[in-house]
């Protein structure tokens, strides 16, 4: 699997003078689901808008399946579908007409059977003759997806697809996404919900203040997620750790009042029983114990605060 979208040194400074992207490099693999995770204002929408041709980059280049998005915009854009973050829909057209319009706009001949299937898949079939302004928010979101699918793009950008969507619809959205992935569509979604990235993505890219901080396999991130820590709070602080505890690589904090032990929470043997035995044998008196798990949230917060 090669990279289907390649972003190289893309920067963006808006007319207001605000720099939304700082030399972003990103390679998106064919067939993957990539989640771009970052807080509001990180530059997620700006980045995908540049790839799709909605915003001009200030510098840098983007290729889609090898086609330059500026010089070969026709070839590049034929492959791309985008579902915007805001519910920017027409109002007076019918669902059917609006989806058919999108297909035509992308240079495809009419295909009523395909559009019927898409609308049925997205539970919009019974609304096909309804005017758009009579749809609920969740239906409008699905309409935007139907429009993007009407010309069968190979790459689909979903900008905060589940924002303002209730729990059942969110489940349905996830099903749609995984079905598309099974059909071989590459999917890039942006979100500021960690659970969403965790649930749906193969890889996660963390973006903050216009910089991509890391792009990592979700499994690798989950491994980090598996790390747990045990804090031993002592009655009396210790100046130096006894020799017998040296191999546990404990971390002394709070002037020696707290000893922290890190272990793999998924492992068969965590070493906690032996550690506690050795602590007691060394004559240290325990006041309290505390365990905690580093979450993706924590990893994320650490990364973001390191960057700033």
């Amino acid at each position, binding site marked *: 699997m090669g990279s289907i979208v390649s972003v190289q040194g893309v920067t963006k400074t808006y007319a207001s003078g605000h720099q939304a992207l700082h030399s972003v490099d990103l390679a998106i693999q064919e067939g993957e689901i990539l989640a771009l995770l970052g807080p509001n204002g990180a530059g997620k929408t700006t980045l995908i808008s540049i790839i799709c041709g*909605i915003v001009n980059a200030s510098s840098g280049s983007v290729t889609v399946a090898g086609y330059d998005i500026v010089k070969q915009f026709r070839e590049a854009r034929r492959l791309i579908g*985008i579902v*915007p973050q805001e519910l920017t829909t027409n109002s*007076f*057209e019918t669902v059917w007409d609006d989806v058919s319009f999108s297909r035509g706009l992308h240079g495809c001949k009419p295909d009523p059977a395909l559009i019927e299937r898409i609308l049925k898949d997205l539970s919009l079939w019974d609304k096909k003759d309804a005017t758009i302004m009579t749809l609920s928010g969740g239906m409008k979101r699905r309409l935007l997806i139907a429009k993007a699918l009407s010309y069968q793009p190979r790459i689909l950008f979903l900008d905060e697809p589940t924002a303002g969507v209730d729990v059942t619809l969110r489940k349905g959205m996830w099903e749609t996404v995984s079905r598309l992935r099974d059909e071989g569509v590459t999917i890039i979604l942006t979100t500021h919900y960690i659970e969403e990235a965790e649930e749906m993505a193969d890889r996660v890219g963390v973006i903050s203040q216009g910089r991509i901080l890391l792009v990592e396999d979700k499994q690798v991130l989950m491994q980090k997620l598996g790390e747990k820590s045990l804090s031993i709070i002592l009655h009396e602080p210790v100046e130096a750790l006894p020799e017998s505890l040296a191999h546990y690589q404990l971390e002394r904090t709070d002037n020696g009042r707290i000893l922290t032990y890190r272990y793999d929470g998924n492992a068969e043997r965590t070493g906690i029983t032996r550690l506690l035995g050795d602590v007691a044998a060394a004559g240290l008196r325990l006041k309290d114990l505390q365990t905690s798990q580093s979450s993706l949230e924590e990893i994320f917060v650490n990364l973001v605060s390191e960057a700033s």
Partner: protein
Amino acid sequence: MNWQAIKAIYFFEMNRTRRTILQSIISPVISTSLYFVVFGAAIGARIESVEGISYAAFIVPGLIMLSLLTQSVTNAAFGIYFPKFTGTIYEILSAPVSPWEVVLGYVGAAASKSLIIGLIILATANLFVPLEIAHPLWMMTFLVLTCISFALLGFIIGIWADNFEKLQLVPLLIITPMVFLGGSFYSISMLPPAWQTVTLFNPVVYLISGFRWSFFGLADVHVGWSVLAIAVFLVACMVAIHKIFSSGYQLKP
């Protein structure tokens, strides 16, 4: 060429017209009929004739132009302004369409619509005053060229406008006065000599004069100047649009 896309935009716009048929077609026809009643019948009864043509007939070309210009400009301006305003322009910008294909779709639809209105008004006028058209082919040429070039102007205005006021302002404050002062209801020769000279700087004078010539065979300025004026205007609009697209002005942040 992405013909499917041009077709999609064109029919999207024409459907919008069909949905608002009362406002977009019937209302200009009614207002023009009112002009006929007021100017043609009431006032025209006291003006015997202008250069040998009955006054009611004389104002027909000017009235058609008045509708044609305002309709072409407002339709095209609104057509491109609206998706910009609602945000649905994202779809046009991210589609495999070139800027000129977008222009063909929007301007083509706006021009078609005002052409239809122009022909309906002509038919309506014929009910009030019997008309004989001296140069039908030239009449159609003027009609079509005017629709296209002023729809292009409207397209530019729609891109330039960043609020509804600006969108309404140009047709109201520029187009309408230019048409009224461009000899829709009078012959330039009826003005004092100084004003005749001033009027020659009004581009609409050439349009109306040429259009009137195609009806009655007489004109304020030579018909060649009329053809040249409209050609220059058409090219100027196309150059402006080319500049707009190559800079991304007002369309892409």
